[in-house]
């Protein structure tokens, strides 16, 4: 594997809340090589968004950070704000979950796209406009010249997400973080947006982190998958291996919870029993133990570490891995 473009080393994020310190992310290690894709999967509140915000340094002011994030040989946590600002856009970019709110409602699509190009690449208005038209065409927006003059509310959700992607791609970033890019969209549009992201990622040889709660989304589109639960990575493996030999009972439960098209109508959807643990109260053992059907005294009392016992590049944190 090539030298990593991004390496996340022991990152923890804690937020002060009225109920005590909330550990949103708890000692996460991840690495991503240039041009590769990593899927981060987990249910709501498992810390996947907080982790991506930590990488981007866009956390709320009150949050405290521990660990280290190395991007292209630079430590993002200790980088001066001005250096960090210059990094965002041309090196690091992000696509957010809700395209309804991630575009400025009172500026035209063109203004938002052209100003980004001018600010980062120093283009003049004419060439920036030409490039903006090209970018919109690239992300599959018909009549791009006309669209430039429109406001976000005149576009559909899918179109807006395409525009958001075009803006994120405009400075040719080395790493794109897509934070649940399809959650706010309907199913047919979801597939189009994911295909678009995959195509752009291949063409630009750009690294991509795809954050989602849907294992189905990462299945065919990522090189590696990390499954997160209660702020920790509980299983990490190359995507084909993860789906063939999953070890962690949580991953299995997550996969079982995907609705299947061939299931009988009105068949109950298998859900994971119980609720995620309270992140303000640290647990001595495995965080998934209370909801896991394989758990025993060992799971309740001792936290398993993320290891690779088989030496096959597949890591998991479980005392009773599935066979």
């Amino acid at each position, binding site marked *: 594997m090539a030298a990593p473009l991004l390496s996340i080393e022991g990152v923890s994020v804690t937020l002060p809340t009225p109920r005590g310190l909330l550990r949103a992310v708890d000692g996460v290690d991840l690495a991503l090589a240039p041009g590769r894709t990593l899927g981060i999967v987990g249910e709501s509140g498992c810390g996947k968004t907080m982790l991506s915000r930590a990488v981007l340094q866009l956390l709320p002011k009150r949050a405290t950070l521990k660990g280290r994030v190395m991007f292209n040989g630079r430590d993002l946590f200790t980088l001066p704000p001005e250096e960090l600002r210059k990094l965002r856009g*041309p090196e*690091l970019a*992000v696509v957010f979950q809700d395209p309804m709110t*991630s575009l400025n409602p009172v500026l035209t699509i063109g203004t938002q796209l052209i100003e980004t190009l001018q*600010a980062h690449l120093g283009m003049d208005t004419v060439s920036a406009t030409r490039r903006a038209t090209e970018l919109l065409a690239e992300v599959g927006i018909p009549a791009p010249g006309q669209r430039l003059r429109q406001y976000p509310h005149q576009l559909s959700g*899918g179109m807006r997400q395409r525009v958001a992607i075009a*803006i994120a791609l405009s400075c040719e970033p080395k790493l794109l973080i897509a934070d649940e890019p399809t959650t706010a969209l309907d199913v047919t549009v979801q597939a189009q947006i994911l295909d678009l992201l995959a195509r752009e990622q291949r063409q630009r040889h750009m690294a991509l982190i795809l954050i989602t709660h849907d294992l189905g989304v990462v299945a065919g589109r990522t090189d590696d998958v990390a499954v997160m639960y209660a702020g920790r990575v509980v299983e990490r493996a190359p995507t084909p291996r993860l789906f063939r030999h999953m070890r962690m009972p949580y991953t299995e439960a997550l996969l079982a919870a995907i609705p299947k098209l061939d299931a009988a109508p009105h068949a109950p959807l298998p859900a994971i029993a119980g609720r995620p643990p309270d992140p303000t109260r640290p647990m001595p053992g495995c965080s998934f133990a209370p909801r896991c059907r394989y758990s025993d005294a060992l799971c309740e009392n001792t936290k398993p570490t993320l290891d690779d016992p088989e030496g096959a590049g597949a890591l998991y944190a479980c005392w009773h891995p599935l066979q």
Partner: protein
Amino acid sequence: MAVLELEDDKVAAPALAHRRRFGGLFFAAMAWIGLIVLAAIFADVLPIPSPTEIDMLGKRALPSAEHWLGNDQLGRDMFSRLIYGARVSLIVGLLAPVISVTIGGMLGMLAGYFRGRFELFVTGGVDVLLAFPPLVFVLAVTAYLGQTIANIALVIGILGIPAFTRVARAVTLSLSEREFVTAARALGATHTRILLRELLPNVALPLGAFFLLGVAITIVVEGALAFLGLGVPPPTPSWGSMIGEGRDSLDIAPWLSFLPATFMFLSVLSFNIVGDTLRALTDPRPGQV
């Protein structure tokens, strides 16, 4: 592949703009404002008598070919005084809200965006300004600096800062939480850029509507100050002082007060109508904020 979702909303946009009609009321209001502004600007070259020339024989004269709207209690031409009075009302009415919106808008946006100690300082300062008795402030400033148009505009402008600060801060607060601000930061935008290019266009809409309301309120406030004798000193005519001077002869010549009052009423109404219509027209967001 994505053609299907496009066809219908492509035509909708221009059609919508056409459908939003201005309405006769808007044009009437614009015409009145235009007339008053032009008259005030060109008052010196208009073929009207001097507003300060006293004709003791023509006190409270009725309208005639020479004096279109009659004379006031000192025999000065009413029509001419109304036009010159418009100057004071318009200069103060426009200058004061400009001062308020500039300072108040800036303070409010900075407070709403940066939060922290600065916000505490700004909201505290605004509360102090709100608690300060406005008339005492006006008296103090005009006593020390003199009763000039600029000073009166300055005083009313400063007194208007709290309202604009609060509007700007409230809007900025809610907008700063929106994802497009985070998205701009994620694209490496500086604070200045986020404030000027992302937030200002959003804050400008409510502030702009509030500004025109401010113009209307200021015209009334200037009139009230002039009525109390705190406005521009005589013999310079102003609508407020004309109403005040006409008060003495309400029983014999009520039009001396009612004419300037009508001018003031029509101007304030016009600014409100224009403000409302423009806000509805320039708001690109359908329905909710």
